[in-house]
């Protein structure tokens, strides 16, 4: 099981799922209509490190963060 958390304004509680790669996570998240709309503009961190490869392998206990558009300052 991996845990997916939604940061900032997405305002959705974390979900747990079975996934071997980030591609699996993507597939499952797209089933949720609200989350699906956020995905094109969201970046992704795996255990607090930004990632850019859908083939990134996942292991039990991994934490995936979905980061919507930012505006600090």
């Amino acid at each position, binding site marked *: 099981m991996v845990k997916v958390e939604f940061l900032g304004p997405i305002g959705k509680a974390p979900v747990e799922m079975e996934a071997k790669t980030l591609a699996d996570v993507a597939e499952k998240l797209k089933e949720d209509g609200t989350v699906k709309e956020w995905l094109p503009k969201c970046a992704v961190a795996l255990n607090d490190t*930004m990632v850019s490869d859908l083939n990134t392998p996942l292991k039990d206990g991994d934490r995936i963060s979905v980061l919507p558009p930012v*505006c600090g300052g």
Partner: protein
Amino acid sequence: MELYNGSLDVKEIFGRWLDEEAESNYGAYIPFVGTIRAEDGIEALSFDIYEPVLRSWFDAWQQRAKERGAVVKMAHSIGDVPVHTSSYVSAVFSPKRRVALELIEEFVEDFKANAPIWKYDVKNGERIYAEDRSTPMDGSGLLA
């Protein structure tokens, strides 16, 4: 890197950073102070921060600055920051002015684009995501 609840004490931060580097022999110190503008009837802006990723982002910047002989510092607010008070101070110290001028621009622009901070307008006590002023971080759309 310093995070505070509410408005920053800008003078305290500016002065303390100045003192910290007083003997470091830097010739140029450029702070950037970001203050909440009164516009569109807002009372305040409000901020969410994802600290672990912000810290990685800042650590990477410290390394980049170090390679150019410089130092970067940063402070930001969490939660509500009323208009005409400050939510953000960053700074560069460097031996020479050219590096300092270049770094402060790169640092502030990358901060705007990639620091994991979310901004909300506060109107009538309500928090509204500032979507139109927000920027997708580098690498966005991976899961789309």
